[in-house]
């Protein structure tokens, strides 16, 4: 098992699927749909296999030896440059406790989304091809350990997403799609620039003793690898690390999305088809926070230390601002979109705590938010499929008409509010415990608890407007859920309840990695202090 390239398989399987889908004649709609579902299901199985073979005691983060399922070989190697000697880029995949939950999440959410895509009826072939391409991009981001590779995957999913929103989306889809694309591209060029800067600032020692510039994230994390003159090297007194950190952070923050870079999100969500909203909220948003944890934190530990207050501040703004905005919405989907803004704020707050509970809470919140929001968007999809409107005020009393559906809604909503017993609570509580545990973020954490209250406010209000009260007779013919919808919502509910009752497995999955990270940042701090670069 150890030599089997399972990460490559899980990443590139969808691309293979895409090729097959492209070869299937257009008429064979059933075959295309089923193939996609099968592929995503296989991905789930692979993710579970990964999980079963995962060694919980290994930390990862900055130490290649404690990464698992590593696949590393030379991808690009060019020698004989007079000026830099050698260029090399590795194909380097691996997982640790940080990425493993994300891999799981991606597999699950994509699988659910592929079921949700069953109702797509126009240009099916193109849809599923794009869907699978997107899948590869997302999975790749979470398993890549080479910055270059990471970036390639990061950008890979932009175009499919553009088309998925733009072709299969709602009335203002063009606007939403281009907005999404421009925003994220703006973010990613910043990432690109920092990537190149880092490339020239750190050198890796190869087996034969030569030193070469490197895109390897793990090597970039090692302070001993810095060059003397690199613009992002702390050894260079005029380094631009601070600015680079901000740039990188903005690049990732756009994906999160962090206030004030969040405005693409409501539009994208509102216009995207249900399955794509699910993926967007369930997986794509996590890439931003994942990127910060995977790249910004360990590569710039000293600046992270300096800026945690601001990260927490923006987390707080996200939480409260998102909640208020959600409250003001009349469109069901937009409300959920803003609630995502709010919930991703918890992730940022947890990250900023820089202690085990906070970061674990943040990662867990990423996972939980992925499942919960996926469920919320599916719920909106269910009602939209039937009523073809999403205006909150035009419903009412659906609880009587669709009791089972309302039951699922209640589970999802209360999970989003952070009701104990459901997964959202654990992660939010951990985030707050972590945030409170750090002197710097303490006050912000306390203020952020307001988000719990506001969350309850808008969620319950929504619940009431749509499901409670007298039944709006207009909707007295709506059917309750069908089998396909059960197939999507039941697994998610089970995950949400399971992790709410017993979060232990997920937490121990990430525990050693989080500890390693916290420790690394603390230690690196000391190192940078001796450099006097602070």
């Amino acid at each position, binding site marked *: 098992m150890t030599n089997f390239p399972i990460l490559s398989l899980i990443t590139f399987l969808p691309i293979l699927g895409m090729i097959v889908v492209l070869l299937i004649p257009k008429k064979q709609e059933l075959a295309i749909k089923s193939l996609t579902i099968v592929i995503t299901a296989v991905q789930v199985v692979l993710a579970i296999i990964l999980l079963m073979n995962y060694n919980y005691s290994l930390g990862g983060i900055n130490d290649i030896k404690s990464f698992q399922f590593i696949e590393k070989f030379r991808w690009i190697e060019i020698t004989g440059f007079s000026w830099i000697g050698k260029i090399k880029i590795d194909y380097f995949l691996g997982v640790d406790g940080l990425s493993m939950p994300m891999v799981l999440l991606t597999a699950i959410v994509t699988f659910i989304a592929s079921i949700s895509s069953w109702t797509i009826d126009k240009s099916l072939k193109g849809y599923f091809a794009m869907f699978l391409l997107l899948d590869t991009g997302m999975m790749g981001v979470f398993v890549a350990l080479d910055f270059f590779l990471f970036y390639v995957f990061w950008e890979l999913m932009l175009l499919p997403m553009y088309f998925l929103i733009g072709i299969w989306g709602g009335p203002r889809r063009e606007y939403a799609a281009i907005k999404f694309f421009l925003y994220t591209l703006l973010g990613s060029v910043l990432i690109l620039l920092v990537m190149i800067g880092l490339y020239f600032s750190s050198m890796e020692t190869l087996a034969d003793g030569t030193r070469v510039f490197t895109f390897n994230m793990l090597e970039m994390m090692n302070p001993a690898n810095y060059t003397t003159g690199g613009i992002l090297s702390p050894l260079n007194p005029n380094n631009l690390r601070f600015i680079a950190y901000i740039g990188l952070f903005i690049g990732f923050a756009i994906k999160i999305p962090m206030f004030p870079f969040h405005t*693409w999100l409501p539009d994208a969500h509102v216009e995207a088809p249900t399955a794509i909203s699910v993926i967007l909220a369930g997986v794509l948003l996590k890439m931003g926070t994942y990127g910060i944890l995977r790249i910004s934190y360990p590569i710039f530990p000293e600046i992270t230390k300096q800026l945690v207050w601001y990260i927490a501040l923006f987390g707080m703004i996200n939480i409260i601002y998102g909640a208020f905005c*959600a409250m*003001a919405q009349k469109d069901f989907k937009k409300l959920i979109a803003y609630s995502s803004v709010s919930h991703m704020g918890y992730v940022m707050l947890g990250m900023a705590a820089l*202690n085990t509970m906070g970061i674990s809470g943040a990662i867990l919140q990423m996972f939980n938010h992925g499942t919960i929001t996926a469920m919320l968007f599916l719920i909106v999809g269910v009602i939209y499929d039937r009523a073809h409107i999403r205006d909150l005020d035009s419903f009412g009393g659906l609880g009587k008409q669709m009791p089972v559906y309302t039951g699922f809604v209640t589970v999802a909503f209360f999970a989003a509010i952070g009701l104990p*017993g459901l997964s959202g609570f654990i992660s939010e509580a951990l985030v707050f*415990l972590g945030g*409170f545990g750090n002197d710097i973020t303490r006050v912000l954490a306390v203020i952020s608890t307001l988000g719990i*209250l506001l969350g309850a406010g808008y969620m319950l209000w929504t619940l009431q407007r749509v499901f409670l009260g007298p039944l709006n007779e207009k909707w007295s013919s709506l059917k309750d859920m069908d089998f396909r919808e059960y197939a999507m919502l039941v697994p998610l509910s089970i995950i949400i309840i399971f992790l709410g009752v017993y979060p232990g497995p997920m937490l121990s999955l990430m525990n050693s990695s989080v500890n390693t990270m916290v420790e690394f940042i603390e230690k690196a701090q000391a190192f940078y202090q001796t450099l006097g670069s602070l």
Partner: protein
Amino acid sequence: MESQFLINTSLYVLFLPLLGFVVTLLLGKKVKSIYLFENLVLILTFIASVLILYNKLVNFPDSKIVSEVEWFGFANTPLFGDISIKLGIMIDNITAMMLFVVALISMLVHLYSIAYMKGDERYNRYFAYLGIFTFSMNGIVLTHNILMMYIFWELVGLSSYLLIGFWFEKKSASDAGKKAFIVNRVGDLGMFAGILILFFTYRTFSFEEIFNSISAGVLPFNSTFWLSVTGILLFCGAIGKSAQFPLHVWLPDAMEGPTPVSALIHAATMVAAGVYLVIRIFGLLTADAMLFIAVIGMISSFIPATIALTQNDIKKVLAYSTISQLGYMIMALGVGAYQFAFFHLVTHAFFKAALFLGSGSVIHAMHHEQDIRYMGGLRKKMPLTYWTFVISSLAIAGIPLTSGFLSKDGILASSLAFANLTGHWLFPITGFLVALLTAFYMFRLIIITFHGEPKDHHKFEHAHESPFVMVMPLVVLATLSVFIWYTPNPINADQGWVLSKWIEKPVLHTPVETRFDFMKPDTEATPENEPIMYSTIYTEAMHHAHYPAMFISLFVAISGILLAFVFYHWKKVNVDALTERIKPLYTFSLNKWYFDELYDKTFVSGTLLLSRALGWFDLKIIDGIVNGAAAATKSLSFFIGNFDRIVIDGFVNLTAYLSGFFGLLFRRIQTGKVQTYIVLVIFSIVILLFIFR
């Protein structure tokens, strides 16, 4: 008898209702009679709770039985070491009694509901909800740590939400559910903040470990001030859940739920959870925190009592009386009368449940008429309901031979003693005043409802005594409102088994200098951290306060009852004329001191306004800036109409103008005339030459 037996049994008590919930919910649609399963489960739960109570009191009267398992943990964390978050059960006498109370009332309410809810379209769902409520309530009672307390705290909130809004087709019902949940969350925020402080300081949630650390001198942020703050913050949870001022507004609205639910959740058990919480954290309350608690309790006992005077909805009157009685308990805790507070919790649970179920019986008979102005004369039609109602009312008014007299008298005596020792005389004065008001409005209720002439003859004709399953609980609960269950001495419970044996003396862990003087250990021999709370001064003061308190309270209770009779039965005073005379006061009371309006105008509208403002801000400004900057590329953008519209709507910033300008300029210079191009080229060369000369 092994202590493990208790733990196992308590697990049954905890999880049987959950099982009932899951089974009833999932099979509710298919199996029509699944509610019987839920009832069976509750009977089993009750039996288990009796077993626990018996075993605990007989076999382990003086020990705490604790059992815990790790829920999840963080190994080897760099900053905090190992962190383990535990689930645990702690059973002491209070737990056992509370369990018994919850299980008993819950069982009775279940049985009662079989008849009361008959014919409801979501009959089974109702029982499922009762099941999850019982589960969460038992969870609160059994837990040994503050986090689990919070968890179940929220879960009872959920079940309360579900049950208040059970008839969600009524807008008022769904509104009330939402209000209850959100108002409770406000209190929970404080509690959560308190939990954060506790965990940050002690790295554990367990009460016992926290208390031990406090005894050892570990304080939050190393200051007694923050210890007080922590206590007050935790108490915020109780303010919400026990509907104390200023968060009391949700409870009257919660009466939208089915009446048995009101009896179980909003009178007897869940609202008492706040008191239970304060009892659990009593060990860490400083004098400041206790004073704060006492003041809140005092205010909360007074305001609702004045409101209850004028209400016409039978359930609302009872709801306000509940708040008022809970205020008593909270005040009792604040003035240090720990035992009496819990005692009152228990007695109140029984008689208030009886009152609510009795009112349910009336409402059932009157075809869901709740306004007492349309009732009257029901005494003859529903004798059993009437007499149980009267007994319970006597109990709540504090007439001797009832349980209520014993517990209430204890509280009043303690407040008197407290006033004596500290000079805070407002507590006993308010206490007695409220006792007067309580007696008055309860008997006003009885007289208008059961005495006199029927006002609505049509409904009256159809009224009849309720079926056995509804009356039986009334009888049981009324019986439990008699003194004999608690003490052989009908006027003093001190020597009774409940107070002297069952309810443990409280243990205070706070640093000595933060306690009230009378709570400091009074002899040299007692070490400072010895968990003995009351000094001899206090015992003496209590002793002195006993008889005055008893007489005064007896006096006020009887005068209250008499006044009620004078006003409403014998009609010696023209009530309407009196009302007219004190119109402003009357309206003030009738409108519940305008709390709802105040909160609506401030917090609710404020929040909505802010959210709308921010929503607008987000759409127009933030997005506008972006679109404006896009208009950079885009002003430019003839080709998507939407884009432009939003740009124009929004804040088109300078960048937009500038780059739009450049876009146009660049385009305009491409005139299509080759000679212009050449001029431009030569011109540029000249300019370049000038720059780089």
